[in-house]
């Protein structure tokens, strides 16, 4: 699929899955989508391996936008992108946006065939700095 992919990374698998449900309701299967949440040991948290797996699952040649909740999700996502390495890394962006609103807005933008840059900009509009 040529649309930009969306990855949702929350400390809570319930939040990640719920957010993914809301995205699917909006865009159906028009957008590659994957989520992950939890520390991999049954507790709250995020882990790099799961994030790398989610990026693989939602991979699109048009790129992937990652939506995160709290600090560790962002740090671990950036680490995952670095470990995936080039050439794919330059097509993956961790968004600065609220996770639920950001994911739904970014996916909606992506479903219309927007570029990675446009998808990320749409999410970032939700977090005016």
């Amino acid at each position, binding site marked *: 699929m040529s649309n930009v992919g969306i990855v949702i990374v929350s400390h809570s698998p319930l939040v990640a899955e719920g957010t993914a449900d809301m995205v699917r309701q909006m865009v159906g299967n028009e957008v590659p989508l994957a989520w992950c949440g939890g*520390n*991999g*040991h049954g*507790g*709250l*948290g*995020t*882990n*790099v*391996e799961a994030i790398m797996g989610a990026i693989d699952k939602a991979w699109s040649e048009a790129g992937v936008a990652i939506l995160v909740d*709290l*600090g*560790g999700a962002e*740090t*671990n996502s*950036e*680490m995952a992108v670095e*470990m995936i390495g080039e050439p794919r890394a330059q097509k993956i962006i961790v968004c600065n946006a609220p996770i639920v609103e950001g994911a739904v807005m970014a996916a909606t933008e992506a479903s219309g065939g927007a570029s990675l840059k446009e998808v990320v900009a749409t999410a970032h509009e939700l977090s005016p700095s």
Partner: protein
Amino acid sequence: MAAADLSRLIEATANTIAAHAEELTRLDQAIGDGDHGLNMKRGFEAVRAEAGAFSAKPLPEALKAIGTKLVMTVGGASGPLFGTLFMALGKEIPAAPDRADLAAAFGKAIEAVAARGKSQAGQKTMLDVLQPVHEALLQGKTAADIVEIADNAADATVPMKALRGRASFLGDRSIGHMDAGARSTALLVRAVAEAIERRA
């Protein structure tokens, strides 16, 4: 560095993290999400479990592999932060470092941690211990001095207001508590310094 030495350093760091896991968790519960002790213990136990394989590698490769293992096993923001410290150290250090090589590599590794955490010293984080330890290394301080400097630096995070991480959500309420990452960093510095000192 001989394999036996590296193996001893791995033992020493894993031992201190395991012995202080509950304390680290208590510190993190006060102003964070309370998972620091358990996360660090999981990571350093994973490193200990493969100590033989890590010790068989040349020092730079060993440090990079240990960093990667920490990234994959610690979880939370501490995984990438402590993992980056070791990975960057491995990238910068020569196979048989002298004191100056170590200080230079350590400086670069601290920069990598600061970039990973988008942070700097003074924000109530592990950097508040790493920075003075780096300065002490540059000044040629003894291992005993460095241990004391690291402990004092961790204590000095108590009156600070957190500007990064989960504790920053508490604003002024983060004042009066030691940063858990600063404490675990001081523990690691002590374990490494004492293990190297015993060999010397």
